[in-house]
């Protein structure tokens, strides 16, 4: 695999040329909520041998803390909040030589699949600006696809790194739960989410991952990756009963199978009987956790607050009424509902049981194959404000991605081809700590289907 792409190493020296390239693109796609490319490098200092990301700029989803940058989470609630600290993944990337140039747009608090739930900005797909970039890490995916940064951090709670990566034709990587510290990631659904990495260069995904992974004393759920025996990927599981795919996605999926066979992989048909329960289980757990995680935003210590309030209770009510968007309110209410005493067995506890069953199902698949292949999302990027997919349908479409979050296993969305001029992502899922398999198979696939550049993007400014 290649090292970090060399053109980006001249970023600091060629800043004017970069800005001339980046400004018009950023105007078209709106990937950043805060964009400070002129600022001097914020990279940390350290021995240069240990600085594998030397000189690289990067973008950070705006629900991840970067010291002295806003931390809006795409919400009016936090529009004025400046973070007093760095998230661990950010601190480690800085220590490895990289520097933050902006905070990327997202669905408010990571809740959505289009970035249209952002209260603070509109992000469009670089491939077709009438379409969405996906979500919730839509800004990160658009910035990478448009060539504004070599890599960006996103967060993946139910597919929020992989789905926009698929929509924008870049790699979107979600590691094993715990291998990347969540410290600094504004919590939405703590037991499901993890920082993730988006890049157009697969080698860079791996380099960034290696630079920031591992146990963090600030996050007790974080851990060092377990070492797994390295053996070449030979078998890939595919779903025997795949239905309801958009024709374009279906076509790319079928070509992908052909390429994988041609690469010598054995395809093993499997079923995931619990797949249809994945989305309801996911939304039950995610909203339950969200209802508690978002309770801290009450306008008292920071964040949106009314000019005047009768009493503290009134202040909290007004702050939350005005500060949160509708999708956030819906999920808080859903989560509050499923946690009511007397109803937990019916909803929350049952969802946790489904979660165990899904893990078991996946384990059975991995007993038969090294990886699981699915589409990342059943449709390619849809147009802004598209009503053919309701909020509810958008949620159902998360079924291929949420499985990895429920089971805590790693998954990678890779650009697999185009359908009607739009990129389509496919997804490999691997057993816990077997990230190496994802990189190996995706690299092999890229030898047959190189990653397509978004029309109009280039790295010519670096010459």
């Amino acid at each position, binding site marked *: 695999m290649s090292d970090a792409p060399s053109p980006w190493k001249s970023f600091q020296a060629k800043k004017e040329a970069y800005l001339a390239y980046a400004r018009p693109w950023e105007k078209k796609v709106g990937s950043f909520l805060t964009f400070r490319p002129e600022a001097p490098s914020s990279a940390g200092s350290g021995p240069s041998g240990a600085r594998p990301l030397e000189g690289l700029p990067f973008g950070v989803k705006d629900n991840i803390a970067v010291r002295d940058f806003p931390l809006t989470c795409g919400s009016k609630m936090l529009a004025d909040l400046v973070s007093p*600290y760095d998230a661990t993944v950010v601190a480690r990337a800085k220590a490895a030589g990289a520097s933050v140039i902006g905070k990327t747009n997202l669905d408010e608090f990571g809740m959505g699949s289009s970035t249209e739930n952002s209260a603070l900005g509109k992000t469009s797909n670089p491939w077709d600006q009438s379409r969405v970039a996906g979500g919730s890490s839509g800004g990160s995916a658009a910035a990478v696809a448009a060539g504004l940064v070599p890599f960006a951090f996103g967060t993946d709670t139910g597919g929020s790194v992989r789905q926009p990566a698929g929509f924008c034709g870049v790699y979107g990587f979600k590691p094993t739960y715990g291998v990347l510290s969540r410290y600094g990631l*504004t*919590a939405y659904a703590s037991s499901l989410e993890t920082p993730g990495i988006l890049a157009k260069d697969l080698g860079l995904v791996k380099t960034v991952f290696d630079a920031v992974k591992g146990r963090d004393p600030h996050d*007790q759920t974080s851990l060092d990756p377990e070492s797994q025996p390295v053996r070449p990927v030979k078998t890939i599981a595919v779903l025997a009963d795949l239905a309801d795919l958009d024709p374009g996605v279906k076509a790319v999926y079928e070509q992908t199978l052909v390429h994988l066979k041609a690469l010598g992989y054995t395809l093993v048909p499997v079923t995931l009987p619990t797949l249809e329960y994945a989305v309801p289980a996911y939304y039950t757990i995610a909203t339950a956790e969200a*209802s508690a995680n978002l309770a*801290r935003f009450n306008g008292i210590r920071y964040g949106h607050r009314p000019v005047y309030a009768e009493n503290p209770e009134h202040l909290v009510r007004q702050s939350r009424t005005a500060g949160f968007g509708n999708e956030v309110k819906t999920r808080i209410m859903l989560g509050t509902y499923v946690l009511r005493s007397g109803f937990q067995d019916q909803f929350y506890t049952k969802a946790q049981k489904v979660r165990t069953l899904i893990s078991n199902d996946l384990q059975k698949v991995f007993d038969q194959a090294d990886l699981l292949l699915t589409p990342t999302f059943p449709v390619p990027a849809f147009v802004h404000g598209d009503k053919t997919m309701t909020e509810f349908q958008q949620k159902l479409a998360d079924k291929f991605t949420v499985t990895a979050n429920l089971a805590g296993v790693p998954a990678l969305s890779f650009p697999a081809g185009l359908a009607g001029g739009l990129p389509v992502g496919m997804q490999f899922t691997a057993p816990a700590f077997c990230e190496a398999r994802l990189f190996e198979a995706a690299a092999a696939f890229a030898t047959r289907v190189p990653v397509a550049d978004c029309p109009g993007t280039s790295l010519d400014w670096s010459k």
Partner: protein
Amino acid sequence: MYQTVVGLEIHIHLNTKSKAFCSCLAEFGDEPNTNVCPVCLGYPGVLPVLNEEALTQGYTVARALGCNLSQRTLFDRKNYFYPDMPKNYQITQFHDPVGRDGKIEFQAHDGTIKTIRIHDVHLEEDAGKMIHAGDMSLCDYNRAGYSLLEVVTEPDLTSGEDAEAFLLSFQRLVRYLGVSDGNMDEGSMKCDTNVSIRKAGEPLGTKVEIKNLNSTRFIKKAIEFETKRQATALETNQRIVQETRLWNENRDVTESMRSKEGSLDYRYFPEPDIPPFLPDAAFWAAVESRQVELPLARKHRLTAAFGLSREQGDFVAESRFMADFFEQAAKESGNGLAVANWLMGDVQKELNHFNLSLEASPLTPFRLAQLQKLLDSGRIHIKIAKQLLDAVFEQNKDPEVVMREKGLEAITTEEQLSPIVDKVFEAHATVVEAIKAGDARQKGFLVGQVMKATDGRAAPALVNSLLAKRLG
């Protein structure tokens, strides 16, 4: 005719240097909002990191209360909105507390030993403090995130007096264990009280929870008030409403705060940010090593071993420091009874006089034992002993050293006393003659003269026997 049934929910601040889930100092009385960080202020993105010392102390208490200790303990989120609670959920333990099903003996108001069962012991975090000032409300988050241990009893207490006695014995227990200072006036110990009444043999009545009780005396009074209020209600065919009531310390009454209908649904669920804690051998060893002889057991043992009265036993077992002090001095001197008397009497006077605590005073168990040994061996008598005790406090020296320096040792041999008696006889020859002639009334005068000549150091028995010999 009604029986009072009382259960307690006791909260103590644990003696941890830092807060339960961050490294901020847990210090009482600092400037508002100085011991805070993004974690205890509930900033976006931060995560709790469990203070293992808090957990060790929690298990230590649960073990001392005879609980079944959890082999795997988990935290839960308790959800409710309150402006002084930064995250608007409290990290607590609902499903897997550190201990359950304990029991502990205490000495009831009437001196009998009773057993109270412990429902559970769980660790949680405290909230901040909200102060209403005029048309403003101010929040201080220094206390937010303090390690708080909650001990929930079964409804085994039957009077306000026993509740008070139990709380005082519980306070003594946590101080013995060194896990909390247990001060109710500083808020490091708090207690919510559940009270119901019933007729003998009937099932439990509807309970009322009383809050805002910041002294054991208020708890006793509140239970007594509630018993009367509930009895009056039942006598007049009213229903007892399940509710939370507040103690009004100005009027000595409880007042309704909220009914059960208005009670909160806390929507407990497992805290996803803290993995389950599985104590290992080293952890269990630490918990075991922190166990101490419990106050009641210690009192019984010391009372029996040194023949103390109940009052003396209560006194010397009041604190672990006092008990250690007493036991050491009692063993060293071989006279526990006398040591107890010293500690309750003259030592207290000296401490009051010098405005010192025993811990901070120059008196050590060794010094007290030495004083008593000097007394018991007849080298000094009681008046000199009191002088020496005072000198220990004044000069921070051993009693024996002061005795030597000031020549205060008793005159206990004929060889020492004879020359002095000779001088007295010489000086008062006429008196001597008178006595010899049969006027026994003047003997006392001679004794007084000998004592005066020896600065009171002559052993009275020796003076008497020597005079008797000389005077025939």
